[in-house]
């Protein structure tokens, strides 16, 4: 429960952060809210030699409205996401999900960017971003890059982020469609055993699944009419059968698969 030793730096600018990361030979790790990273360090599963705290860099924690999208700074806490009027108006699913993450302490410290970069398949936030069709804005030595959320996660706790890159912001299309979020948990602070996030986007239904495989999962189902639930269930069922959820003390892989179906059909019913 005590981390191995590490150096801590808190740069004031993004360029300074880049140069520290560059000089650390891959041993540096970006610290956002720390709610995923610090526990791993205390268990000594993670032992970065330099922690680069990006919380003092200006411009990473705002929510801005652009023409057809909103941009959320990577350092926005879950509590900020849950409260933001812009997010509540243009991506209400995201605000709804953020309000249910962990407990109050976690929501005040944990950040949307940290959650995504950690790459945990159990992240509610990742599920919500899949359902809304988010785009991630990344900066680093090879310049600014943008990723669709579905191209970001590469393996268990792995993303396409280069160790010297930093996630700057998340771009969300302005959506007005119905949404819902169904989460099955043991305790209220637990990660979801399984969760399903849905968001109508244009003529499709964005789906984000939590804790059903090595990475966060999402896809889009085509929506022909509002009444077409049996066709959607069928489409979902087919996809669900190919999922490979983890087995752990919270539930077996088989149980998670079944629950994904149950929660999906509830989420369909509860679209608002």
């Amino acid at each position, binding site marked *: 429960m005590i981390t191995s030793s590490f150096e801590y730096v808190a740069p004031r600018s993004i360029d300074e952060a880049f140069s520290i990361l560059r000089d650390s030979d891959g041993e540096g790790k970006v610290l956002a809210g720390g709610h995923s990273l610090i526990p791993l360090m205390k*268990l000594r599963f993670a032992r970065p030699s330099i922690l680069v705290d990006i919380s003092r860099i200006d411009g990473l924690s705002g929510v801005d409205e652009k023409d057809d999208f909103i941009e959320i700074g990577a350092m926005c806490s879950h509590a900020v996401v849950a409260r933001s009027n812009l997010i509540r108006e243009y991506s209400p699913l995201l605000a709804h999900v953020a309000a249910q993450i962990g*407990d109050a302490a976690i929501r005040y410290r944990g950040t949307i960017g940290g959650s995504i970069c950690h790459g945990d398949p159990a992240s509610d936030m990742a599920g919500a971003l899949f359902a809304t069709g988010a785009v991630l804005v990344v900066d680093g030595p090879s310049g600014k890059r943008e990723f669709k959320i579905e191209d970001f996660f590469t393996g268990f706790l792995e993303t396409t982020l280069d160790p010297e890159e930093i996630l700057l912001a998340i771009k969300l299309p302005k959506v007005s469609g119905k949404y819902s979020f169904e989460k*099955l948990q043991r*305790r209220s602070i637990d990660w979801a055993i399984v969760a399903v996030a849905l968001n109508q986007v244009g003529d499709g239904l964005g789906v984000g699944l939590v804790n059903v495989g090595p990475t966060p999962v999402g896809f889009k189902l085509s929506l022909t009419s509002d009444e077409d639930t049996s066709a959607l269930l069928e489409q979902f069922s087919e996809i669900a059968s190919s999922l490979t959820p983890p087995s752990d003390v919270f539930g077996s892989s088989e149980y998670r698969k*079944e629950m994904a179906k*149950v929660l999906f059909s509830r989420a369909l019913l509860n679209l608002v």
Partner: protein
Amino acid sequence: MSLDFTDLEVGRGEEKLVGSPYRRLEDPIFITKGATYVGDLEFDDIAHISFVRSPVASANLKNVDVSEALGQPGVIAAFTAKDIEIPAIINWINKVIERPFLAKDKLRFVGEAVAMVIGETKAFAEDACEFVNIDYDLTTPIIDPRQSANNEVSLFEGCTSNIVASIEGGQVAQIGEVRIEAEFVNQRLAPCPMEGRAVVATIDGEMLTVYISNQAPHSAKRSIIRYLSIDEGNLRVITPDVGGGFGSKIGTYPEEILVPYIARKLNRTCRWVETRSESMVSLGHGRGQIAKVTLGGDRDGKIRSYCLSVIQDCGAYPEIGANMPALTRWMTSGCYDIDSVDFNSISVLTNTNPTVAYRGAGRPEAAYAIERAVDMFATEIGMDKAEVRFKNFIDPKNFPYQTKVGSTYDCGNYEESLRRVLKLANYDELLVDKENRIKDKSDLLLGIGISSYVEITHGFPAKEFGSVELISGGKLSVKVGTLSHGQGHRSAISMIVRDVTGVDPCNIDFYQGDTELIESGVGTFGSRSMQSGGVACKRAADMLVTKAMEFLSNHLDVDLDKVEFSWHEGGQFSVGSMCLSWSDLYRLAKNEGKVLKASENYESSSPTFPFGAHLAVVEVDVETGKVHLRDMFAIDDAGNILNPLLAKGQIHGGLAQGISQALYEEFIYDQDGNPLTATFADYGFPTAAEFPQFRDELMQTPTSVNELGVKGIGESGTIGATPAVVNAVMDALSVYGISHIDMPLSPEKVFSAIKIAKRSK
């Protein structure tokens, strides 16, 4: 500004304090300054201890090499079993079994201490632990207690089997038209006190002072004396604030003896504060009992016979957990008058963390077994679950009542507590709601679970110390041998003493947990403190008043019967028209070089048997298996209540732990003995969000065992709540013909049971 809650509500009037919701004297400092735990104590030049623990459950230990660790920065020393010159601990149950202070020759469970590293900081010590190399050959572990009982190979050389203790009992003759047979598992629990184990040992010349987070400091002192061969006069044990224990801090652990041992060896102050990771795998676990029950009864609802067979998992070394079946046995037949009752048990070794007493300690297991069995019987004969209990309760006229296993229940009124909880919960309306949901084919089934419990407190009556001394300014100094670790003894005992002496609790200095100040003591466990230490302080206060009156009679040279005392107005002595306060008495006595002080070593004649009835209402989501506890009702009777705020605090905490066993908590080992729930991310330690607002009332049937009329209330919640919640879930699932699911009732377990039941229909 100092916060003084006591003047907010009660305690200023001319009324007795005992029985009133007097605010806790402990809280202002906890809220403003904070508690002082062992880890908070400041010392110059302190060294920090970390333990290296076994990564495997079973192995022959070949070598432990600390040489690399010794070369790490900030490392003062490192030790292995070879360096510890204290003879191994001879086991209290079986003298063939020895527990070395650090693992020697064998590794017996994941988490067993193997080596210790002492650093200039805790961080240095932790870092260096990674450089201790343990060389071992794996051997096959035994994890399942059922397998251990029948295993051909015994875990300890020289033992003929893995059974370390047993209680013989015949199989009772099966009586009755209906026979219920079932197996119930009381899963292993991690106690999870907020503060883990913590020890500081500091040396001043010959004098050794040990600060320890513990429930029984005098017994810790005896252990340290025994193993360190130190003169009694050269050892002082101090227990500052303790952040919870739940039974796990009654005993003194090998690590806790090693801290003073190393401090003497290095001649330096040493501290060990365990990490949460250590605490989860090596602070003693609770429960770990498998019960087989056989209940026989007639279709008219009368229970005729009951037999309980228990396998107790002791873990790798037989600690107090090995003796839990004895406590289970006392409470075998619960609240019921049954013709034929029997009990037998075996306690077995496994390659897991040793089990100890944990809130309820053996009695929750007994209550769970019989309350589940009674429900299954009611279902079998198609009778209402309350009605079947009313038909079998011990008649309130028949107390004291001797059970068939030999316990003598002091007093009780089980019918009344059940009646009251049914009323509180609107039982009849709940039954209608439940049926309607079944009719409507709702996916959210309602379940109602009843549990009537009786338990034993102060199960092993022992002398307890209490003293009251008049000090400067007419204040009192109260010393007691019990050890509050969250219960609020300062408040309760100050209230008792105030009602005798009239001295305001704010003018009573309260001392516990210091072997130098308090000449003897047993400690706090088994819900014993008020009926032992509380009574001792009451008697000491009475004696002090008498001594003061005698002193006054001598001093003024008047007959004793001319001296009067009233507790009103802060305590007033009067002789004729002369009126004196405690402060006057102190001054007069001091002038004569006298100290007014009284002490008592009180030994209660017998245990007491609190009881009550709990009722849980759950909603079961049949599509996911998730259980939602909607309401929890409780009627608890622990005799006279000294302070309902303190009593309710105990009940609420107990209910939470009891509910949590039913729904969330289980310490799991895989088949190789690796812990799967060693962090709070995996172990189902609950939060406030998991519980409804508890709806509870106190009932008071005074006992005649002691003059305060009190029983213990520390453990009732955990004893009654667990079976109530499980009974509620099974009640909801009875539509599927499901009769039992082992705890904790996780969504997947419930879902799978429903799935299997549906398939076989």
